[in-house]
C-alpha cells in the first residue's frame, strides 16, 4: 500500500512528531511504500536545521533525515506555513533578505498542492498532531 504522513504539530512540544516517525518506520517494516512526510501548520518546525535538543533526548531531526536517506522518503514542508514561522532554505533567505537559512535538504519547501496530490494519490494519508 502507498502511504503518506501529514505532521501538524511542533517537535518536542507534542508527541505527534515522535509518533509519526515511529509510524513511518512501522509502515516500511511491513513492506509498504512511504511516499512522503508532509509538514504543515506547526509541524513545519520539524524542518529546523538548527534544532539542538539535549543529547539524552530523541534526536528527531536526525530521525527524519535518516528516514529520507535510508528509505528514499520525501520530506516536504509547506512553504507558506514555513516562512511565517521563520523557516526557509537558502533560496528563500536570499529572496527575503535574511542573513541565514534554517531549512536544508533533504527537507524541501513546496506548495500545498503537493499535499492535495499526496492525499489523493496515496492509498492512505495518516495525520499526526490534530
Amino acid at each position, binding site marked *: 500500500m502507498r502511504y503518506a504522513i*501529514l505532521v501538524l504539530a511542533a517537535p518536542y512540544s507534542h508527541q505527534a512528531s515522535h509518533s509519526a516517525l515511529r509510524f513511518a518506520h512501522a509502515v516500511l517494516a511491513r513492506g509498504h511504500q512511504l511516499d512522503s512526510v508532509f509538514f*504543515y*501548520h506547526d509541524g513545519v518546525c520539524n524542518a529546523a536545521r538548527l534544532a539542538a535538543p539535549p543529547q539524552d533526548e530523541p534526536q528527531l531531526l536526525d530521525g527524519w533525515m535518516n528516514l529520507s536517506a535510508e528509505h528514499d522518503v520525501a520530506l516536504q514542508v509547506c512553504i*507558506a*506555513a514555513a516562512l511565517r514561522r521563520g523557516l526557509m532554505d537558502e533560496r528563500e533567505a536570499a529572496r527575503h533578505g535574511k542573513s541565514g537559512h534554517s531549512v536544508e535538504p533533504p527537507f524541501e519547501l513546496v*506548495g*500545498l*498542492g503537493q*499535499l*492535495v*496530490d499526496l*492525499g*489523493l494519490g496515496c492509498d492512505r*494519508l495518516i*495525520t499526526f498532531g*490534530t
Partner: protein
Amino acid sequence: MPYLEEQNGCSTKGDILLVLRHAPHGSSWLREGLDIALVGAAFDRDVSLLFMGEGVLALLSGQQAGALGQKGTHPTLQMLEMYDIDALFVEQRAMERYGLVQEDLILAPQGLEEAGMADLIKHHDLVLTF
C-alpha cells in the same frame, strides 16, 4: 446523484472534505485549513467544508479583524464562491450548543446531524481535519 437520501443523510460527493473544528482568531488552525480548501479547488478538485464544534463560529456574521491585527478568515470565506466551493455544512448540534440559528451565519451552510456527517465523510476520497 439520485441515491442515498436516507433520513438525515447527506448525498454530497467530492474529492476533498475539510473538517474545520477551530474558531477563528485564537489560532491559525482555521486559516491554514481553509488554505488547503482553496488550493484543492484551484487544482480543480471538488472541495466540501464541514464546520464542526467551535468551528461553526467561523461563520458567525459581523466579524472584524480586531485588536490583534490578524487578517481574520471572513475575507477567505467570502472568496469560497469564487473558487466554486459551495458544498458547505455545519454540525447542527454545535449550532444548538452555541445558541445559533441559520440567520446568524454567513454563506447559508446546510445543517447536518450525526448520520449526515458520517455520510459526508464516507463520500469523500480525502478527509482532512483542522
